[in-house]
């Protein structure tokens, strides 16, 4: 029991004192995951809206690709990104392996299908008659797209949250492509795994509390959004 108490006490001391290592790891983690989310967001909303509204050749294939992506284990994404970025791999010349950019790339690939899928689903949930009504009100093609995306803003926010939540707490890919280098690619999750391996529970618990707090905030936001966007 001493171990636990001691760990928790040390964790709170680290948190309250604003330990530089804790702050560094947290900020790096946020920077990487927020960048990945932002990039996915731009690509995913565009892709999801286009796929959701239009019927075209290859649409079924794209949709099943997105579904496969949403269900793929992050470890496999990490493996694929590793192979690509490895020093004598196809993108090896950019020397991205074991840099924060590698983690951003992996997390981007993990969150993109999630955000695209959510966007597609919320665009498709719009009553097709509402589209007719907007056309009947005199909306041009461009105005129609804009109105529809705007009308689903709450579910889209949910997509962003789900995307961010899935990558901030991811371990495997971050470890594989980042390499867990102190100060450079050590993020919250990989740091926790490492500290536990060393038997240093104080730092691990401190980082765990921060991770839980982040995930809790994201989930809270998701719940609030879902309640607000309930249909009449």
């Amino acid at each position: 029991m001493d171990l636990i108490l001691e760990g928790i006490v040390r964790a709170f001391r680290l948190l309250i004192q604003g330990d530089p290592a804790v702050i560094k790891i947290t900020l790096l983690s946020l920077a990487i995951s927020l960048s990945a989310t932002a990039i996915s967001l731009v690509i995913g909303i565009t892709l999801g809206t286009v796929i959701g509204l239009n019927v075209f050749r290859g649409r079924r294939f794209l949709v099943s690709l997105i579904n496969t992506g949403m269900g793929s284990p992050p470890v496999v994404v990490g493996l694929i990104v590793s192979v690509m970025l490895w020093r004598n791999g196809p993108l090896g010349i950019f020397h991205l392996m074991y840099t924060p950019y590698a983690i951003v790339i992996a997390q981007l690939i993990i969150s993109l299908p999630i955000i695209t899928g959510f966007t597609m689903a919320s665009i498709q949930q719009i009553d097709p008659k509402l589209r007719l009504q907007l056309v009947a009100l005199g909306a041009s093609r461009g105005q129609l797209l804009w109105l529809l995306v705007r009308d689903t803003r709450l579910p889209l926010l949910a997509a962003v949250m789900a995307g961010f939540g899935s990558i901030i707490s991811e371990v495997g890919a971050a470890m594989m492509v980042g390499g867990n280098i102190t100060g450079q690619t050590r993020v919250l999750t990989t740091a926790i795994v490492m500290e536990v391996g060393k038997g240093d529970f104080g730092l691990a618990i401190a980082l765990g509390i921060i991770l839980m707090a982040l995930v809790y905030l994201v989930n809270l936001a998701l719940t609030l959004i879902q309640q607000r966007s309930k249909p009449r």
Partner: protein
Amino acid sequence: MRQETVSTSTLALEARDISVVRGGVKVLEIPSLQVLPNEVLVVIGPNGSGKTTLLLTLAGLLRPASGTLLYQGQPATTQAELLRLHRRMAVVFQEALLLNSTVWDNVTLGLRLRGVAKEEIKTRADKWLERFGIASLAGRQARTLSGGEAKRTSLARAFVLQPDILFLDEPFNGLDSHSRQAIIDDFEGVLRETRTTTVLVTHDSNEALALAHRVIVLMDGRIRQLGSREEVFSNPVDEQVAAFVGVENIIDGVVTSNQGGIINVSIGPSSPGSIIEAVADSAAGEKVSVCIRPEEITLTVSRASSSARNSFSGTITRLVSFGAFSRVEIDCGFPLVVLVTKRSAEEMGLEKGKQIFASFKATGVHVIKR
């Protein structure tokens, strides 16, 4: 006047040789249909008869398999032509179909899409929110509205556009009877003021009776009858149409008095002096139509003192028998259709040219504002 042939360019809308195919089946086939300026054209028909399909096609929202749509004499086929049509018209669907936004945003949406100036938007929106009694709701989120309020918002959103032509698809469905009647009354008033050209689709023949200048009866995707309200309700072309619309004698007149809920209606210049008594709350001077179901009228060979308040002498102009019934058409200065059993017709010796008395009770008369 409405029955005259009108030159194409003065038509509000014209459809030629329209057909709509779904799953390999022709669900709609309309050789020709003209919407006249300022008329209220009501399309009635049973569920699944293709009413909504017809409305969507006329509004340029559903591309037909074949045929052309002419708006004010100009074709409406290309994307640009359709956008032009859509920016002159308005559609009210069965559901209110509002965006997740305020009532004000929803009502002004069409004007903003058209790029109307801000002050103009404000003036017009204020007027129509007021007119439909929802001015106080302008700031409310659409998803918090009741069914009736949402419907009023959707009507205001249509009228604020001051459309050249208005399409409505079962607009009064799914409301409880109280707010339904209030909304129909408001709508009727607005329509009489603005004289907006209107195409309204409904399965409820009472709405057609209350609102229509002309009526189309649609069955199985084909026009079974098209004519004035009086023609369709008094002279349905066949048994099926009659069964659906419910046959009515419809006679226009003016209320001359109201004593304790019993009104006298003077029925038009065509037969001066004829008065129909009815139970209704209309005021003197009001223009009304009175409706009498053919089976509510009794024929007698001589005038008898009776509790039936309305009794008219007339001449039989036509007598048709079918099944157990005979349909008797009488000219009493105005036309009247009467349904009696065949046995009655035989026993009374009814025949063309015979003089007869037609009587019906004041409680059997249904009065509609015109």
